[in-house]
């Protein structure tokens, strides 16, 4: 199943030009339509809930393939973060062909409505900031604070006023004013809220890992093709050292992210594993993106060349869904939870 899914995504991607995001064209709606048509925007979601079935690992494979292809669609948010959260909270999942995103930074508060709508109805107050695919997503999962604990609310945001902001790759990261909006929602425990944030971070780590691997592959390929001084760049030892350093980073990231995904599949608590994966993947960007551009020379600095589609995303993704520094603090604090003398046992328990 997994190989087939990945092959299908690759085929669909191959038929699409690299998509240059602008304010007027904030996403690749054509690609999304094809993915939805093929059932790929519902993978990992049970058929009873309107999805296409499949496991988390299948959804991860789709997200990774699309990330490596610099696809401008909210698949990571939908498949790895928002849809699983909606299902876990027993809320009604919107149809998988309607893009769904998530806002988890907690800037919104929720008040239970006592007007007879029942305990599942909340009034949201505040502004959701740094929302991935704001203006594109039709529904938004909002992690809100409330007097009785964290609330997961599902908001229909189609047509709502959105401020335009973009990350370094031009992906929409705007704000949505949710003042007084009524939404279905469910109370979460603090732990569930932490785990939701962790899954979002892990989703970005999966994207980073795939993108970094692709950047390495492009760079190795380019070094084999581009000739200077009568031989391919890859024959120069200085260039080999750079590519090997990139490979070291990419391989380390891939191993950790992969193991973190597997740990979550086994049912382990995702928070520290996701934190580690996110921090490690993010820190590799510095080396991999820098050296990729160095090896590509000026051509890689142009808009025509494909390299920036991934390097710009990597520069942003490392600080999205929680900055690298914030997750590093979470990891550091989590590892010290049983006291500093238990650091080593804690490290061997994360994964």
């Amino acid at each position, binding site marked *: 199943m997994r190989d087939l899914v990945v092959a299908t995504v690759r085929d669909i991607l191959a038929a699409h030009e690299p998509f240059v995001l602008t304010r007027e064209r904030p996403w690749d709606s054509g690609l999304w339509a094809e993915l939805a048509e093929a059932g790929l925007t519902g993978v990992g979601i049970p058929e009873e809930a309107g999805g296409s079935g499949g496991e988390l690992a299948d959804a991860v494979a789709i997200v990774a393939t699309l990330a490596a292809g610099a696809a401008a669609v909210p698949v990571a948010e939908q498949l790895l973060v928002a849809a699983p959260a909606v299902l876990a909270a027993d809320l009604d999942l919107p149809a998988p062909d309607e893009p769904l995103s998530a806002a988890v930074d907690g800037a919104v508060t929720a008040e239970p409505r006592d007007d007879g709508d029942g305990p599942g109805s909340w009034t949201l107050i505040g502004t959701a900031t740094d929302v991935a695919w704001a203006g594109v997503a039709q529904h938004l999962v909002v992690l809100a604070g409330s007097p009785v604990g964290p609330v997961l609310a599902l908001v229909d945001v189609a047509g709502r006023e959105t401020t335009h902001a973009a990350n370094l790759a031009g992906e929409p990261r705007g704000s949505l004013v949710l003042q007084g909006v009524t939404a279905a929602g469910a109370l979460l425990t603090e732990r569930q809220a932490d785990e939701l944030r962790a899954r979002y971070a892990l989703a970005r780590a999966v994207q980073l890992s795939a993108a970094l691997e692709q950047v390495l592959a492009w760079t190795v390929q380019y070094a084999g093709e581009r000739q200077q001084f009568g031989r391919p760049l890859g024959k120069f030892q200085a260039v*080999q050292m750079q590519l*090997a350093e990139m490979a070291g*980073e990419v391989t380390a990231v891939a191993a950790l992210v992969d193991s973190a995904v597997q740990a979550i599949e086994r049912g382990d608590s995702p928070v520290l594993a996701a934190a*580690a994966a996110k921090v490690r993947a993010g820190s590799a960007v510095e080396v991999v993106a820098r050296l990729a551009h160095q090896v590509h020379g000026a051509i890689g600095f142009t808009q025509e060349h494909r390299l920036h589609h991934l390097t710009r995303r990597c520069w942003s993704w490392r600080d999205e869904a929680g900055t690298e520094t914030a997750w590093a*603090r979470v990891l*550091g604090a989590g590892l010290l939870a049983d006291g500093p003398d238990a650091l080593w046992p804690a490290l061997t328990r994360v994964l």
Partner: protein
Amino acid sequence: MPSTLTLAPVVPSAAAEQVRAEVREFLAAELAAGTFTTHVDTWLSGVDPAFSRKLGERGWLGMTWPRRYGGHERTAMERYAVTEELLAAGAPVAAHWIADRQSGPNLLRYGTEAQRAEILPRIAAGECYFVIGMSEPDSGSDLASIRTRATRNGDGDWVVNGAKVWTSNAHTSHYAITLVRTSPADPAHRHAGLSQLLVDLSLPGITVNPIRILDGGHHFNEVVFDDVVVPGDMLLGEEGNGWHQVTAELAFERSGPERFLSTYPLIAEFARRVADSGDPAQLATLGRVSARLLALRQLSLRIAGALDRGELPDIPAALVKDVGTTFEADVIDEVRRAVDVPASLDSPDPLGRALAEAQLHAPGYTLRGGTNEILRGIVARGLGLR
């Protein structure tokens, strides 16, 4: 990712976690009894035969070897857990480290029955220690250029002449697996004509001269061979196959947790500081360092898994060593920038002492076992560039 660099994931094994718990308990008791104190880089500098024998008694040396050679027929994953726990505690493991890690497996692979039966049980008991006799004054990275020679005499014994350098712990060990030239160098076939000899370091004609490292410590040596007569049956493996054997040995040498945990005791000491201060920037530093360590652990574990499957992952091993040793040195500056503690071996602050130990040993991390430049050349080969 090119298949030469891809490693299959491993599932944590219950047996490994079991032995991990046993080692942890043992180490806590030893630390409490004061039989050792934690130091940085103890797999180079912590020579303690009594401690090595204790590990042997508990079955934690020669773990993966057949029982008939004193081994315990356990998995590489279990061995991994044991070595990792010992390193994390900064325990004195240098005496037996090379013998257990690479000389024993080398003997198992290439030794004669007599060599295995005679030596392996003593290694597993923590009583017999080995050194790596590869580098020479004029041959470092370019190992194939070695000049130490062995020629057969009329009795069929080997007569060895030459000198090895940087030979870690030759002054505390029993045998040197020595790479020698057994036929003259042939510029057209640089790797041909090399062989490995099992050399008893107490043989007449061998002189071990200390070479002090920059802090004055005596860990490595020059070993001079002056007409040393090595019995004919102490050839290891095949005559002329030395290059191939050395390469196989390096897969074991390069991939273990000692390639990223040499400075772990510094991280442990830093953690105590962070727990006291609760300082957010220090917490972030601890998190960043830990994330790097966790990734290296996954890589190294995967290599242990590959060894269990009988693979020889020499290219990933080179990659792990490059990334790992870079990390163990980087840790020093990560910690330095997060605290206001001057490094000194005489510091009243244990963090200052750990920083000093880690810094003074730092140049060695990215040199020993093949420099990072050489390792990156191997990784580049894995990428198809050469």
